[in-house]
């Protein structure tokens, strides 16, 4: 009896492993470097761009970043080679070396571990192959760092709310206190509302961090603020979409959803739906395709001139680790009811998901 139990557990474990394995198989198509030069047969095929993905199983990279990057590289007359590290820092190190061996003229790295990858990145640069740190920082002074401007996100959140309601009682729901990003976002917001706060036009009646960016905790915090202020809250500056959901649930329980402007970021489908419904005012969105295109164009430029500082749009940036790197910061886009069409046109969300529960004709994006 007991032996049979054990056997069945073993079989179950085997099934689980097999299921995981099959997932890996679909992704491993990319792990053996695929060369698309022959197919596209580019006349200027002398620029080979090698891309090292850290984990291609995450939908975003294959769906948004890769096609945009590939298109930009091919439009510039280059060719695209890639491999997948499957979330392993060691695999990624050898993957970068492989790309150099395959004759890549420029390498784009989405780092699994920004520290562990440094030796192979330095080896590539020593061989004259420039490296782009894609989306995530690599602490090496010779890379080109390409990402979205995270401080600007906080600025955009506050600006969108300020445009709607530049006075009154504001509450600020921040992310995890241990996460530096929460403070970056807050300092970005301060640039917009600092003056109004000093002048007394805006009163911050409540401000708190949220453990683990947990929406349920954000909801409880907002319920407390609403009780303490007897519902006299005019604006809720919230740092991401998940917590915005919790805050809006708290407002909804008081019949105030849609009356108090609320901010967010990430472009969550649920949040974009709330923007369409009118319960969330702004969702600061980072278009992954834009990042891919920028990386493709930068890689082509680096083929011609391997100096990162020479790439158009690059400026100096001091990293948290104290390195001076060249970097390109892309601007995120604040999505409001007026420009919801952008996320649909980008294929980020289907019109059906965006407009679920929205009365037809109330929002331009939901005809």
């Amino acid at each position, binding site marked *: 009896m*007991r032996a049979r*139990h*054990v056997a069945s557990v073993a079989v179950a474990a085997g099934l689980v492993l097999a299921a995981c394995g099959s997932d890996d198989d679909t992704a491993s198509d990319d792990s053996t470097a695929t060369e698309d030069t022959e197919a596209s047969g580019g006349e200027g095929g002398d620029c080979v761009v090698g891309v090292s993905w850290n984990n291609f199983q*995450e*939908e*975003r990279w294959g769906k948004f970043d890769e096609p945009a990057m590939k298109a930009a590289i091919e439009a510039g007359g280059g060719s695209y080679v890639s491999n997948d590290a499957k979330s392993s820092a060691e695999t990624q190190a050898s993957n970068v070396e492989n790309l150099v061996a395959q004759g890549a003229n420029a390498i784009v790295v989405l780092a699994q571990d920004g520290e562990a990858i440094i030796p192979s990145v330095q080896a590539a640069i020593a061989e004259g192959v420039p490296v782009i740190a894609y989306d995530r920082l690599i602490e090496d002074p010779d890379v080109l760092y390409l990402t979205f401007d995270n401080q600007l996100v906080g600025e955009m959140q506050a600006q969108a709310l300020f445009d709607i309601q530049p006075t009154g009682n504001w509450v600020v729901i921040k992310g995890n*206190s241990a996460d530096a990003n929460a403070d970056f976002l807050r300092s970005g917001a301060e640039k917009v509302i600092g003056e109004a706060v000093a002048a007394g036009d805006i009163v911050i009646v*409540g*401000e*708190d*961090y*949220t*453990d*683990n*960016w*947990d*929406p*349920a*905790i954000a*909801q*409880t*915090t907002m*319920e*407390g*603020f609403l*009780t*303490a202020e007897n*519902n006299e809250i005019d604006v809720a500056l919230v740092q991401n*979409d*998940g917590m915005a*959901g*919790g805050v809006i*649930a708290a407002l*909804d*329980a*008081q*019949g*105030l959803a849609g009356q108090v402007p609320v901010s967010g970021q990430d472009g*969550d*489908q*649920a*949040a974009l*739906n709330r923007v369409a419904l009118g319960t969330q005012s702004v969702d600061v969105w980072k278009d992954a395709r834009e990042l891919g295109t920028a990386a493709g164009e930068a890689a082509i430029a680096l083929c011609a001139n391997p100096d990162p500082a020479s790439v158009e749009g690059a400026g100096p940036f001091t990293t948290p680790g104290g390195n001076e790197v060249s970097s390109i910061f892309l601007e995120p886009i604040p999505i409001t009811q007026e420009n919801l069409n952008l996320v649909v046109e980008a294929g980020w969300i289907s019109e059906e998901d965006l407009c*679920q*529960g929205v009365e037809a004709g109330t929002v331009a994006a939901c005809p």
Partner: protein
Amino acid sequence: MTDTQAAPATPSKTSALRSGLASAEIDSRMVGMILATAVIWISFNLLSDGDFLTARNLWNLSVQSTSIAIMATGMVLIIVSRNIDLSVGSLLGFLGYVMAMVQTRWIPNTFDLGLERWYTWIVALAVGLALGALVGAFQGFLVGYIKIPAFIVTLGGLLIWRGLIFRFEQGQTLSPLDSTFGRLGGGGADGSLGDWKSWLVGGIACALIIASVVLSRRRRQRYDLPLRPMWLDVGIAVLGCAVVVAGIGLVANRYISPITGSPTGIAYPVVILIMVTILMTFLARRRQFGRYVYAYGGNPEAAELGGINTRKVVMMTFVLMGVLCAVSAAVQTARLDAAVTNLGVTNELDVISAAVIGGTSFAGGIGTIPGAVLGAVIMQSLRSGMVLLKVDSPTQDVVVGLVLIVAVGLDSTLRKGAK
């Protein structure tokens, strides 16, 4: 509210008050906790200029406490039987996500049946409860039969169930949920019982209290056990009913819904918590299973030699825990009107704290269900009281941590003193 295991065997030099309480079958620890809650509430009320003891805040507090309190009732039995469950937060997140998948993806898309069907919430809840029981059985089997330490099994579970969320839809937020399901969370215009149904529930609760006092008296008579004085039994029944009436009249129905403009009444999640508490208390104190759990926790070897199927008992505590996680998951996702990947992160610590503040001992064999519920209420009172006072969350963590240590320290000191 005493359980026999909790009372010291033969008190030799106990204080007069304590022995008086014990012979009256009143748990002195429970009395102490109620007093502590009263002190906390009155202090916060003074500090917040009367914001704390308002119908609105207490109603919010009742809803905010439910999710942790429901899981804490199960955690008591786990800890009493000398185990631990670290997976409850992750399991809650996983089950909440699956229930949301049923409502927002599988029923409407996979089976092409559309949104907002009358059966949507029933199917979602049934799937969640069944899956919770299954996961509990899996973990309980590994602990009870294979004898892998519960700490290890559930630590693994903590990682596994959270990780599995990302297997669905890349872990994106699922929202909005079915509107009927949403009522389980207590929000909106129809998330609570309203005026007259609240009084109906109150009437039933009062009848149950009187019945349990009468039945307990009869039982003691039948076994020739010493009886409480009649005035005390009458007093307990009157006091119990008074609490029920005050809870409904001064809190639930006094809180006027800002949406409908009429009395809000008891929120559905609170109704669920009350039912869970009654059922779990009944199970722990009046059923064979409950007695086995306490017997095993008090002395595992003796229980095993006494012919109790201890493996099965241990496994069943985990099955119960899994089901209760599903109930809490339904309440939390419904309340948030969304399933998110970080739902319930670190909830395991809150649940264990609630059980321990409520008098559950890691030494095994000791702990009560109502105590754990009150423990959850005390923890949430501290949290929401400090939010009202605009104390920031890092400071809240410091205070709650200190209270946890002081509460357990006091408890074990008093317990030693009683021996």
